[in-house]
């Protein structure tokens, strides 16, 4: 039962924001701006270093939530929400984990749809929160039956 997964969380995983990864990501979203990729521009900026684009946390490893066995196919991405305390800096280390925040079902045109709300958290080495990334995944009735849920 997906409802039983609410509150389950992964172990923290250490991620380093690599310059090359930020450059590739910025290019892939068509935004290779100096503030993200040019070292001199970063040093002269108000942040004194390069920063990462706001959706860069999709690349972070946040571990595995135990007993949450989602299928690799048939999931629909419904919503994505970021909150930041400050921009993430190139070169810094971020500790990430994930939690199932909620699960609910609603009836619609395509049957009874499941909504799984998962939040990724990123902290610095002192355990201070830097960002959250919430993802709402929609799971159709057919896909849930395939999972035995």
């Amino acid at each position: 039962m997906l409802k039983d997964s609410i509150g389950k969380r992964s172990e923290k995983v250490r991620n380093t924001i690599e310059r090359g990864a930020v450059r590739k990501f910025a290019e892939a979203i068509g935004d290779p701006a100096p503030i993200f990729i040019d070292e001199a521009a970063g040093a002269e900026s108000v942040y004194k270093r390069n920063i990462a684009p706001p959706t860069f946390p999709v690349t972070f490893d946040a571990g595995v939530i135990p007993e949450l066995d989602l299928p690799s196919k048939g999931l629909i991405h419904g919503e994505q929400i970021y909150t930041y305390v400050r921009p993430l800096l190139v070169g810094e280390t971020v500790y990430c984990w994930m939690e199932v925040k909620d699960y609910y079902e609603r009836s619609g045109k395509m049957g009874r749809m499941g909504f799984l709300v998962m939040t990724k958290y990123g902290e610095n080495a002192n355990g201070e929160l830097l960002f959250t990334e919430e993802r709402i995944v929609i799971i159709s009735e057919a896909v849930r039956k395939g999972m035995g849920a």
Partner: protein
Amino acid sequence: MIGIKELRAGDSLPEVRLNPVTRLDLIKYAGASGDFNPIHTIDAEAEQAGLPGIIAHGMWTMGNLAKLFTPYLEQGFIREYAIRFRGMVFLGDVVTLKAVLKDLQDQELTFEVAAVNHDGQDVLKGSVVFSAELPDL
């Protein structure tokens, strides 16, 4: 470029019209993001999933949309970025990125943002809260 705090409610940031979406765009995003779901890159997999063809990663479009704010990142930062995925983006689609200032409170500017396809349909819709106060680092 103007100071972002000079904007008033109802003002828009300059729109950006993306080039038609190519398979290479999505292959690059798959590699850069680590999202290798094959419905974004391989025709047969997309068809098997009941789609008429491969579709862009929602996060590719969301990543693109944020660039409207990149020119202002020396004046502040994105505190909140919330998107609802409303429609699919296919190969060849031409997507336009938009942001309109809805509310200006003290140091926080709230924008309504959208990515619109060439048929005028919103494929992404949401909001950005831009803090015009620089953070403590």
